């Protein structure tokens, strides 16, 4: 029997807010998560002075986000308190996704067949940097905490999640730069398809706002620099005034489940994953080649096997080259049909969450599919020529036009190294 994979839980955290629904609502309202970082010591002085940063309680006691909720309800895992933020973000998003799925309430759950695959692009780069600083001040012996390594390693979110919930299935972390989130979902889906697991906790997280994290992208001239005084205008995918992406942080987690397993326990099913594609450009380390993205979209579509894509959540980072390349690839894949498929980039609102982008955008896409309201591309006032005749959902949210209930959305994520991923979520009726 062919196994099918569905989504039964979601959790998201970004500078837009904590919670999948809160994030989506903010997107639909056209809110921007992007703010100035010029006043933050270790991030000041770069050409790019904007980011999509989660403001913590320490920074803003009144409106700041209380990150301690990541470890407050897990007193048995004391070391979590010392973990880098990328791990804490994942713990928060995952708690929401697991609560949402009600999987822990399922008495017959075989935890040996529940796996975890949470990835990250740059893992604990903040702690890494702090620790090197500390060795300069305190010396090598005292500067490095015994908790340093387990607090910055890429696979620790997956590790911590397995410890917290007792999931004893496959436990790994995929890294594929800015395609990490999508790759984690694909990887998790494969595990269910191969009958290794019934449930996979899949997602990604990122906390890159350290000196080298921001500085590294800045040195590549990848970040926006022209809108430092108007942060909310800085991320403007496909707009002629775009000048680079806006770096951001956050996490997204999805509970993926085998269809019969989900049905048996009466779970709420948000969508079925009906197709995915993964490919490589095999061309340049950073400059994309449209033919690579074309392969991943085509593969996803042929697995999906239907002609009902009603929305594309594009990678759309707001860089010169990337935005053009992706649209060219879409033209190649969809041909004349492209003009009837609404496309937007939620990065116009959230900035680019790097490794976390794929999973939060998958969540945005799935909620859009269910609510039939599509998030807009903010700041898109003067689209590039390649977008002529296309519906890029500029400035304001739109409803899904078709009356049909059999609709699907595609979410793209591409990464440095020339890695490309596309995932298709289909609405499901039971």
């Amino acid at each position, binding site marked *: 029997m062919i196994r099918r994979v569905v989504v039964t839980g979601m959790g998201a955290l970004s500078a837009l807010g904590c919670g999948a629904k809160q994030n989506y609502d903010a997107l639909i309202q056209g809110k921007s998560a992007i703010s100035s970082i010029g006043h933050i010591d270790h991030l000041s002085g770069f050409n790019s002075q904007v980011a999509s940063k989660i403001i913590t309680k320490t920074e803003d006691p009144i409106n700041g986000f209380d990150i301690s909720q990541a470890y407050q309800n897990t007193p048995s895992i004391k*070391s979590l308190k010392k973990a880098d933020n990328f791990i804490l973000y994942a713990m928060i998003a995952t708690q929401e996704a697991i609560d949402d799925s009600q999987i822990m309430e399922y008495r017959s759950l075989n935890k040996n067949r529940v796996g975890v695959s949470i990835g990250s692009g740059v893992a604990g780069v903040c702690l890494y940097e702090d620790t090197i600083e500390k060795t300069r001040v305190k010396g090598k012996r005292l500067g490095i905490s015994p908790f340093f390594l387990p607090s910055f390693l890429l696979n620790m979110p997956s590790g911590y999640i397995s410890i917290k919930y007792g999931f004893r299935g496959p436990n790994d972390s995929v890294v594929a730069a800015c395609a990490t989130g999508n790759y984690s979902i694909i990887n998790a889906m494969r595990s269910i398809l191969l009958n290794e697991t019934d449930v996979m906790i899949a997602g990604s997280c990122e906390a890159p706002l350290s000196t080298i994290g921001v500085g590294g992208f800045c040195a590549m001239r990848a970040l926006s620099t022209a809108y430092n005084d108007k942060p909310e205008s800085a991320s403007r995918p496909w707009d002629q005034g775009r000048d680079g992406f806006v770096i951001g942080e956050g996490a997204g987690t999805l509970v993926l489940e085998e269809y019969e397993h989900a049905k048996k326990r009466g779970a709420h099913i948000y969508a079925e994953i009906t197709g995915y594609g993964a490919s490589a450009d095999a061309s340049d380390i950073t400059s994309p080649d449209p033919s690579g993205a074309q392969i991943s979209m085509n593969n996803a579509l042929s697995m999906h096997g239907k002609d009902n894509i009603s929305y594309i959540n594009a990678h759309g980072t707001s860089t010169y080259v990337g935005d053009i390349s992706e649209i060219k690839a879409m033209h190649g894949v969809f041909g004349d049909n492209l003009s009837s498929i609404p496309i937007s980039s939620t990065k116009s609102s959230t900035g680019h969450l790097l490794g976390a982008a794929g999973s939060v955008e998958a969540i945005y896409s799935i909620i859009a599919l269910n609510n039939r309201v599509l998030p807009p591309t903010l700041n898109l006032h003067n689209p590039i020529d390649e977008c002529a005749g296309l519906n890029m959902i500029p400035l304001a949210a739109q409803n899904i036009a078709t009356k049909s209930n059999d609709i699907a959305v595609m979410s793209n994520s591409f990464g440095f190294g020339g890695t490309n991923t596309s995932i298709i979520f289909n609405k499901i009726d039971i």
Partner: protein
Amino acid sequence: MNEVNYFSLSGNELREAITKKVLDILDEYIESSGLKKDNCSDDKDINSEISEQKANILINGKNILDLHLVDEVGLDSLSLVELLMSVDEEFGISIEEDVAEHLNNSNELIDKVVELIQADKKYNAN
């Protein structure tokens, strides 16, 4: 950070100052272990009279300084290393690893710190 000059102290005074500091460092671990102090209104620190009271803190009827660091305070291997690093840093000493492995409780730890500081003093005096 180092407000106290341990080298200028000796005898009971030295031991008391070290005890006070070790208890300060230990506090974080006691707290995260969820252990409750039997006889403690929150300490106000500062002078050594209070530190004497601190040293008499009981947890489950046992003096805090006698609690086994692993079995009773509940330190895992990494937390134990971290605690000892904080102690090394505070007192400017280096507790050898083979010694560290055999430390059972805070009293033994304090003994070790006293011993190392006194050895340093002697060395400096020569």
